[in-house]
């Protein structure tokens, strides 16, 4: 049941004001899309809002004390790199995508050294302009920056235990709500990933005969959702078809599970995103008809360099 405010084609006698109020069952998604298309808001703005909310929650709710210098470095450096690289290439400067990367780094990266923060931020945004294949970047920028930091830089680590179950609930509700409202197709990847990962984690617990509290704890890490909604959902490093997205998300879930529970690697989420990015780049290499391989894509800036 949906309440629709509608401009009638002709005034009705029962509504002297000239408006009709109708209650209709919306069986057609076309109508719904038409309705929501009036609010043509970039989904990245939703992501920025959600990430800011999580950051606020981590400070006020979880008592995290961010280092102001590091925070500023992670917020400013990506914008500087984005601006410089855009100017160099000759594309308009867009803040939104760099802001998502910035906020993801603020939430996930732990460091106490200013230059490490600057280098990670530079690598993150720089990878979008340098590590490219057929008109778009290969790796999710944040995952790329985090991966390099974990491998190569001192004083950089991730703290998956930092996020309690409250973060999971908050993020899930916010992002789930946004998905319902906006129907952003990129979130399909997130939800397929979450469903696949849940199947694996709860399936393992069922096989081990563990109490339900254990898989719940393993699954409801806030970090899982941050990866799901803000990295795996990156439209430029994920397939464009539903089937492709499903395969991509399931590959991510499977590799995360394998790295975490079979190889006992730390930060399996980062490595699995990077692995899935490589897998997708390879598939594009094979499939020369890929839409994203078109360098004359008029929306290249808005999509490929965002």
């Amino acid at each position: 049941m949906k309440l629709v405010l509608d401009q009638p084609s002709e005034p009705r006698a029962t509504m002297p004001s000239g408006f009709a109020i109708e209650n209709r069952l919306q069986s057609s998604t076309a109508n719904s899309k038409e309705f929501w298309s009036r609010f043509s808001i970039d989904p990245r703005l939703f992501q920025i809002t959600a990430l800011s909310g999580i950051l606020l929650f981590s400070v006020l709710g979880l008592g995290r004390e961010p280092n102001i210098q590091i925070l500023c470095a992670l917020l400013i450096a990506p914008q500087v790199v984005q601006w410089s690289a855009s100017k160099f290439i000759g594309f308009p400067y867009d803040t939104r995508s760099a802001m998502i990367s910035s906020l993801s780094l603020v939430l996930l990266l732990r460091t106490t050294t200013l230059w490490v923060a600057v280098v990670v931020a530079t690598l993150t945004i720089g990878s979008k302009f340098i590590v490219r294949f057929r008109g778009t970047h290969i790796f999710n920028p944040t995952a790329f920056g985090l991966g390099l930091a974990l491998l190569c830089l001192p004083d950089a680590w991730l703290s998956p235990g930092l996020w309690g179950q409250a973060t999971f609930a908050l993020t899930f509700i916010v992002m789930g709500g946004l998905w319902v409202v906006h129907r952003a197709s990129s979130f399909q990847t997130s939800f397929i990933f979450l469903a696949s990962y849940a199947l694996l984690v709860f399936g393992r617990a069922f096989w081990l005969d563990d109490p339900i509290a254990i898989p719940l704890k393993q699954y409801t890490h806030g970090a899982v959702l941050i990866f799901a909604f803000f990295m795996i959902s990156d439209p430029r490093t994920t397939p464009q078809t539903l089937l492709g997205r499903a395969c991509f998300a399931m590959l991510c879930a499977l590799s995360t599970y394998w790295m975490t529970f079979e190889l006992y690697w730390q930060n399996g989420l980062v490595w699995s995103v990077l692995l899935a990015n490589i897998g997708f780049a390879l598939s594009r290499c094979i499939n020369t008809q890929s839409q994203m391989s078109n360098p004359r894509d008029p929306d290249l800036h808005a999509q490929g360099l965002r």
Partner: protein
Amino acid sequence: MKQIQKSHCIYLVSILVGFTSATLSAFCGFYVAKADTDLFNNASKVVLVRDGDKTVLTMANDYEGEAKDFAMVIPVPTKIERGQIHVGNNAAIDRIDAFTAPRLVEYFDRDPCEPPMMMEAMADGAMMRRGAAKSIASSKKQSAKSLGVTIEAEYTVGEYDIAILSAKQSGGLFTYLNQEGYKVPAGAERVLGSYIKQKMRFFIAKVNLKEKAKLGNSYLRPLQVAYEHPRFMLPIRLGTLNAKGSQDLFVFTITKQGRVETTNYPTVKIASGDEIPVYVKDEFKPFYKDMFSTAVKRDGMKSVFLEYAWDLGWCDPCAADPLNAKELKELGVFWQTSASNGRRLGRMPGVAQSAYVTRLHLRYDAEHFPEDLMFQETKNRQNFQGRYVLRHPFKGATCELAENYYRNLETSQEKRAQNLANLTGWDINTIRSKMYRPSKDRKLDATPFWNRLWGDDDKDSGRVPVQRPQTQVAPKPVPPRPEPEPRPIKAERPWWKFWGS
């Protein structure tokens, strides 16, 4: 049943630990107690030394019952050979406990009437001091095999008889343990089954009374196990099965790179750096216990608390002498630690390097900590210590400046009382009544501040500016320790042979 009557007392998973010398002691595993044996699980102490995939686990043993009743079962991720088991030294665990313990730091206010000069003393108050079979016959092996339990090896190490078990089914292992006279708590079968499916082995230790008599010790020494496996974890699930209420666990980790934290539970810093009333110096143990209990209560028993994280090359202030290379080796530090000459990086002479210690403290039960503790070593080398500041007021100053000093002191003392009440949940009025308040001893000048600022009509308005007395901190000098001779580990020997044969 006869078998039940001769039940041994086991603890599953691990470690007896002293919390303080007064309040002992418990075990992060569960006791499989004799029916009439009253044992309690309250606190445990574990040292984890880790580099790469190599781990040395040391379990402090504060067991205080009959030695013949002692036994423990520890799940380990991989198969263990004789050389990978070692009996350690309680003193080394006491040393790391004392070294990393939360501490009091004292400062003394100077006489406000004297001209400014450096006059400072600091004393550290280390607070935590803790007080602290037979072989299976071949017929039993056959019996075990029929139950799907394989006794992979049996050893006598020090005063312990060790058996390494693997099993195919939890039911078989459960039955085997019961047949062997162990009283296994309800619910253990399910947990054992989970560990078996994760391909974990079981390490059973019992006291060999003859060997113990030869040694002549009245206590049991800590058991150490060295293994190589990517899993960096501590099994605590079994330990919650027969626990009465919550338990405390202290985990001391020594790593090369940096701080250790839990990956499946939040790791949060314990409150530190607050100024508290001086009388707490005589009540530090209750203070620390209540402060920790209050922190756990506020946190909802969701987190692991970080109490100390420091490069072992130095400390400031030191609650105890830093550990030297020999002591670190006793705790299982298998990599080469060099001794500093004290000239580089401000390190103290004779102190081992290339080692970073983290002290984690958690209070847990099955409801709040359903999963085993999973750890990661981070690159974080930022130092942290739980420290609480005592500032001794100067009493007896009589000059004009003293009025300002005591007025400010009244405010400061109130703040310290509130800090203490906030940290511990103690009654604020009781705290106030126990602490020094300038208003009790002297009549403070009640002149309004504007009169002090501008003066009365009949007085000169030029007054000396108000200044709070300054104090400065100097670390307590630590006497140099004799430099031990480093013993290189031969490349051709297995890494766990650092203990020697």
